[in-house]
């Protein structure tokens, strides 16, 4: 075999090995693009169907949502109407509530005033009850006193009647006695009688003036005592001269009151001591 044949045999060997390697590589690693295409077509078909289904669902959903939206809008409008109505009612209710609160406050104030008034009236009633009880007690006492006074009045009436009878009798006796006194020429002046019958009170005065009487008349002495001192005509008083220095007191005489004024009186000398001359400044007394 020539050299060229040997070269060709060697080249054929190398190329056949290369061919085998490429065929094995293609067989072992090459993908089946037909199967891949089929799978892709199937996937595309499924996706298309799913898309159509989704579109249908979308359309149905849109229709349903549109209807629901319309319903919700209607409900919203109705709810807004109800809300407006409720708001109006709420405003009216709030106004009524405010009015009710105001009235409640007024009623509460009135109730407080009424309670206070009731308390005051109760206290007043208690006080009036106590006063009433006191008045009842006082009334009973007055009734008892009235009965006692009625008894007294009755007794006094009886006594008055008796006194009137006695007075009538005494008037008759008095008339008879006056006739007897007039027939005997005795004085009837009560002052003279009082001076004769009652002693003079314990008084002491001073001689203001003296007047000497004539031969047949008595001496008159004016002194500083009168009816305000309890003296009456007919009372007898002593006249003396008080002690002065070495001179001792001297009895001058006794006078009988013949005229009396409220603060002065005049008496006539009824008893004169020896060498006793009554003069202005001597003392008059009823104590001796």
């Amino acid at each position, binding site marked *: *075999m020539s050299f060229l*044949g*040997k070269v060709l*045999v*060697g080249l*054929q*060997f190398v*190329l*056949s*090995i290369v*061919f*085998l390697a*490429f*065929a*094995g590589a*293609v*067989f072992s690693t*090459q993908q*089946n693009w*037909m199967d891949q295409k089929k799978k892709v077509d199937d996937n595309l078909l499924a996706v298309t169907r799913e898309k159509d289904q989704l579109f249908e669902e979308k359309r149905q959903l849109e229709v349903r949502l549109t209807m629901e939206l319309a319903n919700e809008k209607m409900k919203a409008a109705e709810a807004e109407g109800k809300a407006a109505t409720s708001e109006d009612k709420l405003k009216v209710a709030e106004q009524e509530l405010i009015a009710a609160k105001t009235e409640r406050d007024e009623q509460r104030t009135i109730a407080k005033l009424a309670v206070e008034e009731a308390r005051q009236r109760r206290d007043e009633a208690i006080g009036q009850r106590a006063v009433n009880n006191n008045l009842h007690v006082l009334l009973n006492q007055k009734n008892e006193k009235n009965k006692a006074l009625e008894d007294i009045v009755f007794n006094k009436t009886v006594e008055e009647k008796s006194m009137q009878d006695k007075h009538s009798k005494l008037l008759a006796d008095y008339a008879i006695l006056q006739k007897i006194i007039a027939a005997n020429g005795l004085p009837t002046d009560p002052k003279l009688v009082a001076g004769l019958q009652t002693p003079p009170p314990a008084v002491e005065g001073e001689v203001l003036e003296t007047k000497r009487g004539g031969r047949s008349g008595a001496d008159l002495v004016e002194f500083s005592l009168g009816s305000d001192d309890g003296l009456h005509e007919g009372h007898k008083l002593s006249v003396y001269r008080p002690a002065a220095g070495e001179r001792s007191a001297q009895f001058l005489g006794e006078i009988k009151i013949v005229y009396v004024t409220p603060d002065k009186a005049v008496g006539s000398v009824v008893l004169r001591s020896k060498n006793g001359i009554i003069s202005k400044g001597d003392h008059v007394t009823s104590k001796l």
Partner: protein
Amino acid sequence: MSRRSSDTGSKAPPDVYVGLLFVSVSALIAGIILLVLELGRYNWQMG
């Protein structure tokens, strides 16, 4: 010389080149089989 050898009628002992040719034929047949199998996957559709 080779003619003479054939002329002599005596069989020449297979040398290394015969072995290479045998291996080459075997590789070609195996490669063809693999390609046929690959083509069978496509159902013999070439287009």
